[in-house]
């Protein structure tokens, strides 16, 4: 009844090609943005920011990055953790090397540096595909973590091998370091997420995204209709690297405050982000958010219910958490291989017909 195109007339071309053609969708999007920007910052506290919102937002950026590469362009990557480490260490070197430059610029530059590194590791994708490419990116993961542990220049020769974020502010508000307020952490991440999601959404709707999807669906056919596979694959690696780098930089500077390559950016991070993309839905920006929310919230919820609510031993809860998330992933892959995004799509289809489905 409310959720339909009928009666909503476009009078200009830009109206005709807008992201949310349905009025209800558009207003829902504005309401979500308004709540996120104007309501949540006033109610957020340290626990909610650190346990739920900040990791959710940062992982959402990483998931968008991986989704562009894997979901839109069909290039499997197991190197996300290592690529996030590139963003984190780039951000650290920039923050300590140029203390007067704004942290926002540093985060964007870290994204750029990561984009260059990821493109370099994407070069083999021109010759190898599928599992073989996955192994090549896996090698990148181990190589990068080893590199950041081995070469002490990356951590400014500190004895512990750890990097820690110095205090930096945006418009006079501290956003990194131990004295950061919860709302400031949340807002800086939210700004980056909004920026990344809008850029990603528009890229995937345009010619670039269509080329990626053509390569994903059948690379030979795409080449025949005039898509340059080298350009398409490398731009996917580059754009993906940019987002993953931003996620890594924020993860280190805003969320953790200190990091160690092996501890924070190990292979388990790569798998975590990959699970987010798979559970959320390959080839969907909304899916990246849904997957990130699912993988961040589930452990927090289980921990609070099992340990806080039921008073079970922590080791039992930790093991149960592995079992539950593992089985949920399997159930999802069997019951809904297209992820949470597909459920959302189905709900929208149903809404279009509601309340007269026949």
């Amino acid at each position, binding site marked *: 009844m409310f959720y339909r195109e009928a009666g909503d007339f476009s009078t200009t071309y830009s109206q005709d090609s807008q992201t949310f053609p349905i009025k209800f969708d558009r207003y829902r999007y504005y309401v979500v943005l308004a709540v996120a920007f104007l309501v949540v910052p006033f109610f957020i506290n340290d626990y909610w920011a650190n346990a739920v919102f900040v990791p959710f937002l940062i992982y959402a950026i990483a998931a968008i990055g991986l989704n562009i590469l894997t979901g839109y362009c069909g290039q499997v990557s197991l190197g996300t953790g290592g690529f996030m480490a590139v963003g984190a260490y780039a951000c650290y070197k920039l923050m300590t090397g140029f203390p007067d430059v704004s942290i926002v610029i540093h985060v964007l530059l870290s994204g750029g540096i990561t984009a260059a590194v990821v493109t370099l590791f994407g070069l083999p994708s021109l010759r190898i595909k599928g599992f073989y490419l996955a192994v090549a990116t896996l090698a990148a993961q181990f190589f990068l973590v080893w590199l950041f542990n081995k070469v002490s220049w990356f951590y400014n020769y500190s*004895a*512990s*091998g750890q990097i820690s974020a110095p205090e930096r502010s945006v418009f006079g508000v501290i956003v990194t370091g131990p004295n950061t307020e919860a709302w400031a952490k949340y807002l800086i991440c939210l700004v980056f997420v909004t920026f990344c999601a809008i850029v990603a959404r528009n890229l995937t709707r345009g010619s670039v995204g269509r080329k990626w999807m053509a390569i994903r669906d059948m690379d030979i056919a795409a080449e025949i209709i005039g898509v340059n596979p080298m350009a398409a694959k490398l731009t996917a690696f580059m754009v993906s690297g940019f987002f993953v780098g931003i996620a890594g930089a924020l993860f280190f500077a805003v969320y953790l*405050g200190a990091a160690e390559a092996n501890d924070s950016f190990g292979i388990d991070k790569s798998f975590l982000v990959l699970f987010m993309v798979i559970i959320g839905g390959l080839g969907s920006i909304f899916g990246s958010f849904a997957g990130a929310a699912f993988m961040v919230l589930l452990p927090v*919820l289980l921990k*609070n219910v099992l340990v*806080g609510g039921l008073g079970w031993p*922590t080791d039992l809860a930790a093991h149960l958490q592995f079992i539950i998330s593992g089985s949920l992933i399997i159930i999802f892959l069997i019951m809904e291989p297209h992820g949470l995004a597909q459920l959302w799509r189905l709900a929208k289809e149903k809404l279009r017909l509601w309340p007269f489905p026949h």
Partner: protein
Amino acid sequence: MKLLSMTVAAVMAASPVMADLVFPSLSYRTGPYAANGIPFADGYEDYFTLLNERDGGIGGVPVRVIECETGYNAEKGIECYEATKGEGALVYQPLSTATTYQMIPKATADGIPVHSMGYGRTSAKNGAVFSNIFNYPANYWDGASHAINHILDVNGGDISGKKIALVYHNSAYGKEPIRTLEELSKKHGYELMPVAVDHPGQEQKSQWLQIRQQRPDYVLMWGWGVMNQVAIQEAANIRYNMENFIGIWWSGSENDVLPAGAGADGYKALTFHNIGRDYPLYDDLQKYVVDAGKAAGAGDQVGTVLYNRGMYAAMLAAEAAKTAQELSGNADITPAEMRAGMEALEMTEAKMAALGLPNFGPEFKVSCENHGGNGLGAVKQWDASAGEWSLITGYEASDQDVIGPLVEEDSAAFAAESGITPSC
């Protein structure tokens, strides 16, 4: 998502709030470090259970231990810190050097003390810079010096030209002693050969092949979790002389040596507290905690090396809380008062004997300038046939001529980079 957040909020709101002393236990009972994490966590919790059952808490206020699983991962450790600090946590003992490093700025900003007992950032000994961080009674640089002193004793005071390998966990923890060992090598003329082992350390064939080829005279180890067992097994496999293999205090529990069987006989490790369960306190523990069925975990760790250490950590925390109660006059102390109590803590032989732990640990006194105690340590040796550790030296001092300036230098660097003015 809204529904989920409401459920979480409801669950969190349901937990009761009352006057109690909160001691979070950031434990790891899962993962590759569980073998070492479990006994420590059990000892820590059992001691507080004993205080609750026998004395009704500390100074009449019951103790509440909140356990949070970290898996020896710094990121999860910080999550646990954020999740529990709002409950009125008095002191954090993360049992992880990487977590301690990340917790230092956060805890200082939040005004909550951290006790990294025998681990963490060594230069936190300088309380003028690290106001909220304590690492009494001994630290890693003391440990490095104890090991070298022991080698000096064995060799009649001359080790120039000897080759000493350091097998270390490739993390903030394992890298910690390298600086001191380098300084000491300049002083004593030995050659240092660092050998890194990556997390988690189940595979060390190449490292021990290197040791077999290069034939170092001594091997020191900074290992933890499964890495310890594997290293001791590998050393036994290449028939390395166990007498010349010395682990830090975290590489010297029963779980580490038992898998290698007779091959581990003669392995040495450092310690900063006594071993065994031959103390009056254990009778109370047996009566009030174990026999009452209130022991933490499976209850099968009582009296092991790491159980003792967990209990020792809890005992020092409880004594600091008592000191804080005396100083402030409040029974229900705040983290700030706890910090003051820790800074005024004095452990004497009489005090430990009264607690039922005579001759258990060294005497020391904490002050604002010295958050690290006296740095005394001893060497113990494993007897595989008897299946027990025994102390082979007394508690000896470390080489403060070398360590003192290093602490000064490192803490000054930290003060400069985080804009702290040292003050006492």
